[in-house]
């Protein structure tokens, strides 16, 4: 039976009633509004403090503007998520994630707890403050349409194997940013390691139920594309749902001198100093 047979939509009144009857349904992937109603609120978080709660569909994307000091946690419930992530200073989006500085300044290529996500302007946009996965990547970026066409035979944005870059371009557009504003990204939950000869060893996921938590050191535009890592060796386009929760309480603050991570390394200390200086001058 055609779906239309389940609907009575012959008049405006009937059509309206039919549309309204569809409200209240749930999906495996959807935003939860208000955020405090999230069915997946992390145990250690007060639901009332949530400002963003969402399960991002496999092969899709999300984006949000977050206040300074917000904590946000990405969870990989199936072990198959891959959270390609970009962050921008929401006040001046020309300041954005700079992957080269993010690897070079801390003298460390692999992302983990304490690692700052640096802009090209000598400041910390976000800090990784928790990580139970340990399998991330800052080398390979996200997928392009050309790559997915090669790997999966299709990369249509509306098709079964959309490319991360194409999703980023749309997410960026929703904040007034164009294709030139989509720089190299980092990805969480699917890792690679660099071998002696420079080749990438695929380490993939560390399994279901891991999470990464970040703190917004400045007001942020956050873009996330949940698509397979470009070096995922499997021939199929495999990606799982991604859970996102963000919250704000009197205890969630940007990093200050009071935090141990502030003094973890001299380079990072100066990056925090630059960030606090900027925030202070702007009256944040």
């Amino acid at each position, binding site marked *: 039976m055609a779906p239309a047979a389940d609907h009575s939509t012959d008049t405006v009144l009937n059509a309206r009633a039919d549309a309204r009857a569809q409200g209240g349904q749930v999906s495996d992937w959807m935003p939860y509004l208000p955020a405090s109603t999230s069915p997946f609120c992390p145990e250690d978080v007060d639901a009332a403090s949530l400002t963003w709660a969402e399960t991002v569909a496999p092969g899709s994307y999300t984006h949000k503007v977050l206040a300074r000091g917000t904590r946000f946690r990405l969870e990989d419930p199936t072990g198959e998520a891959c959270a390609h992530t970009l962050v921008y200073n929401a006040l001046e989006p020309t300041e954005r994630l700079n992957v080269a500085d993010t690897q070079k300044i801390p*003298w460390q*290529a*692999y992302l983990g707890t304490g690692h700052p996500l640096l802009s090209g302007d000598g400041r910390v946009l976000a800090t990784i403050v928790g990580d139970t996965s340990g399998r991330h990547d800052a080398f*390979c*970026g996200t997928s392009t349409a050309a790559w997915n066409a090669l790997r999966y035979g299709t990369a249509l944005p509306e098709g079964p194997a959309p490319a991360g870059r194409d999703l980023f371009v749309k997410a960026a557009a929703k904040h007034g940013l164009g*294709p030139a504003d989509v720089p190299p990204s980092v990805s969480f939950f699917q890792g690679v390691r660099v071998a002696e000869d420079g080749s*990438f060893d695929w380490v993939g996921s560390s399994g279901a139920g891991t999470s990464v938590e970040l703190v917004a050191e400045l007001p942020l535009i956050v873009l996330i594309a949940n698509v397979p890592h470009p070096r995922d060796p499997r021939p199929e386009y495999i990606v799982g749902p991604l859970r996102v929760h963000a919250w704000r309480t009197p205890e969630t603050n940007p990093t200050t001198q009071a935090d141990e991570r502030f003094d973890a390394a001299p380079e990072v200390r100066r990056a925090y100093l*630059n960030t606090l200086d900027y925030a202070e001058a702007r009256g944040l």
Partner: protein
Amino acid sequence: MTTTINNPVMRPVTTVPVPVTTYLTPDGQLVSSVPVGASYADGSPLEWGGPLVPGAVVLDEQVAPRASWSGVVRAGQVLTIVDVGGNQSGDCLLYNAHDTDERYSAPDTLAWQDNAYIRTGTVLRSNHGRALMTVIENEIDRQDTIGGACSRESNTLRYGHHVMYHHGCRENFLTEGAKHGLGMRDIVSNINWFMNVPVEEDGALGIVDGMSAPGKRVALRAEIDTLVLISNCPQMNNPCNDFNPTPLRMIVSEPDVDYEADA
């Protein structure tokens, strides 16, 4: 379309030694605000080399230490970059000359070839995964695209706030990019010709002593018309130029034969 010049005149290095910015202290002493060593030392060996591929030279220019450069390399032409003084990082960004929204992408270049380093045969890809240029000859073991560019801002992180006014590659990219309508949003992770950035087993990563030498070269064939931006790295706080900034030479040739990469 392309004008072939049979007897190209090398544009001379105009700023060697680099003119220093000075001011007079109250006791009459002239002090420079340019970091010591910003021009190369007297007696530095310089090897000017020549094109890596046979063919008519259509452009032959020198890039002074600390300076920037840009040029369009037409599809099929080959750009030879000469590391004249040895271990001089040529920070480099590439753009589709007809649509600069399409630009060099370090992650796509690395992900497609499944390797973190640039060597002979590496296809330098755009943010659409398309080939911009191909490395057809390379006289050092490997080239870097992980280390990014130095900048006034990142220098404050790496070395301290006292170096805030040191010149940096991002400054050069902004200056040179502005000539082509490019700005902050157009500066992405770059290539560093002749710079050495190993990734160690535990993920330790950093700029270490170079593997190049005076006269070492790399040759890039343009697959599409490509706008090339170069910053001849002025960094004086790490080994990206052996702490002795030297010139680069940029040579564009029309190769005699359809040149194929040998890797």
